[in-house]
């Protein structure tokens, strides 16, 4: 049965990581990651703080070359491609960084408009319309002329989200999108992510710790473990909760209520 699932995953895989090993210098962060993200998936990267989630994201968006292994987009090997081909693939990505990473010398509107101005033939007026629309999606209508330093951390996160969505990309990468948001905004964000997937057919890769949103939106996942330095589980988070025997996974998915005693035993 597992074989068929894996076969199916391979078939319409949008992103595939094969034997991916990530390291900073000689310091290995995670090794031998194998997973694939199907088209239209909302794929959750989870694991404890500092286990390498952001690092994995940096490998997937082409910022850091893997120490070993490969990353495929639509069966094209990213790191073996020519620079121009890589640039073309990257144009299908929308990325929200953990810190928001807004361009501090540009206003919020200019931040969102930058990719539009670079890659489309829209007139300035049309660009402005798109920008206002994207900002209204994240609840920032009216903040067009503010500079990043003039808005709060959570608002910067949302503005970063608007910039990531500016080009209606095929794949969206979000690093902790709901960190710093109030519960209601976080909930709205989940709805927005689902909507992006359903209406635009986007594939979404999300790093998040929010259990509520993991179960609400995720239909595929990878669980990174900092101790063994590799993935110890993967698949639908709801199924993981119901079926996974691994105490660390159970511990994580139940906020430490289940599996904790098992972990103690394991350690002692």
């Amino acid at each position, binding site marked *: 049965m597992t074989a068929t699932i894996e076969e199916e995953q391979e078939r319409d895989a949008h992103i595939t990581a094969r034997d991916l090993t990530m390291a900073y210098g000689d310091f290995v962060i995670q090794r031998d990651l194998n997973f694939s993200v199907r088209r239209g998936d909302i794929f959750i990267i989870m694991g404890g703080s*500092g286990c390498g989630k952001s690092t994995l994201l*940096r490998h997937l*968006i*082409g*910022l850091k070359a893997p120490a070993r292994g490969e990353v495929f987009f639509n069966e094209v090997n990213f790191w073996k491609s020519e620079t121009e081909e890589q*640039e073309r693939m*990257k*144009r299908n*990505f929308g*990325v929200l*960084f*953990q*810190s*928001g*990473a*807004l*361009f*501090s*010398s540009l206003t919020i509107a200019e931040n969102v408009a*930058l*990719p539009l101005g*670079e*890659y489309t033939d829209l007139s300035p007026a049309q660009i402005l319309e798109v920008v206002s629309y994207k900002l209204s999606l994240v609840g920032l209508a009216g903040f067009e002329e503010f500079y990043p330093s003039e808005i709060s951390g959570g608002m910067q996160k949302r503005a970063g989200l608007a*910039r990531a969505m500016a080009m209606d990309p095929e794949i969206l990468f979000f690093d902790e999108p709901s960190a710093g948001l109030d519960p209601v905004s976080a909930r709205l964000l989940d709805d927005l992510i689902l909507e992006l997937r359903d209406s635009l057919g986007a594939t979404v890769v999300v790093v998040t710790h929010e259990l509520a949103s993991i179960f609400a939106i995720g239909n595929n996942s990878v669980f990174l473990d*900092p*101790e063994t330095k590799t993935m110890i589980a993967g698949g639908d988070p709801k199924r993981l909760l119901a079926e996974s025997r691994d105490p660390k996974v159970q511990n994580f998915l139940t906020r430490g209520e289940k599996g904790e005693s098992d972990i103690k035993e394991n*350690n002692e």
Partner: protein
Amino acid sequence: MLKKTVTPCKIAFSTPAADKLLINVAGDWVIGNDFPPIGDVQKNLEQHSSLRQISFNTEELLAWDSGFLTFLIKVRDICTQYEIEMNKEGLPEGVQRLLTLSSAVPERKGARRETVREPVLARIGVKALDFVRASGEMLGFIGEAFLVFVRLLSGKARFRRSDIALIIQECGPQALPIVTLISFLVGLILAYMGAVQLQMFGAQVYVASLVGLGMARVMGALMTGIIMAGRTGASFAAQLGTMQVNEEIDAYRTLGISPMEFLVLPRMLALILMVPLLTLYADLVGILAGLFVGVTMLDIGFMEYYHQTVVSLTLTQFAVGLIQATVFGVLIAIAGCMRGMQCGRSASAVGEATTSAVVTSIVFIVVAAGVLTIVFNQLGI
């Protein structure tokens, strides 16, 4: 803060049973108080080889804070080392809970960095390798910058024209006050130094030639270069470094926008344009300072000074200064932008990048000034 009187920490050991050690703690176990050395505990453990358990009596414990806990953690580590059970029951309840919490997440293996002191030879080797690597990176950056300029010339470079205007404003007009002050003083100093010697021969009118030549050929460019290194080179490094920390540079990359074109190119262009212009201005101010000294202190007539300056200065002298200024501009821009782009991901890394940008550009400037002076001399200009 009011200094309270603290009762000294006391520790006493007793053995209620052969395999049990009871530790009596008394006094104020607070940070700032002198704790008994942990060696005492260890010694006691070693004396009783049949020990299986240690426990605590804290009836005389007056106060405790994190200091007490760090002490207990050390005791716990020793206990694990000797495979002895540590009975927490005698401890105050809060201490017990905090102790349990501190052991809830086991220390990540390999996360703690070992600081090993390496032998001198090894360190020299590491430094040498670092130097080679740094030189390689520098050449890499210069190569990239060159390619970006090629793209600029072929009209393919993407950047915002409005950025250039803004950066020019920042590194040109806004630097005028400091450039005025420094070059006026340098002109003044040149005039005085010259006057002391020349007056002995009654040839003080040659102060005009000295100041004119000095400013136009070297001092104008050198002073402007050093000011710009401290002012603009440092600010470029800090700006780009902060962008590196904020992941902004990564964000440009993922948007497919080359930070070299979008961020570095406008900065380099602005600086390479502004340093020669500021140098010309500095030359002028320096010469005016000389004129001021000549007319007011040395009794040289205004027209006489003017005439002597015009006679001794040719366009070639200015050209020599401008060529140097352009070279300095390129060097400062490279050093500032390179250190910014190489910056690590922390606030202290930005500080280091800024310092290193200024040091690098001043070293570059002085070396280049020396080389160029020799070259011009050899060419007979």
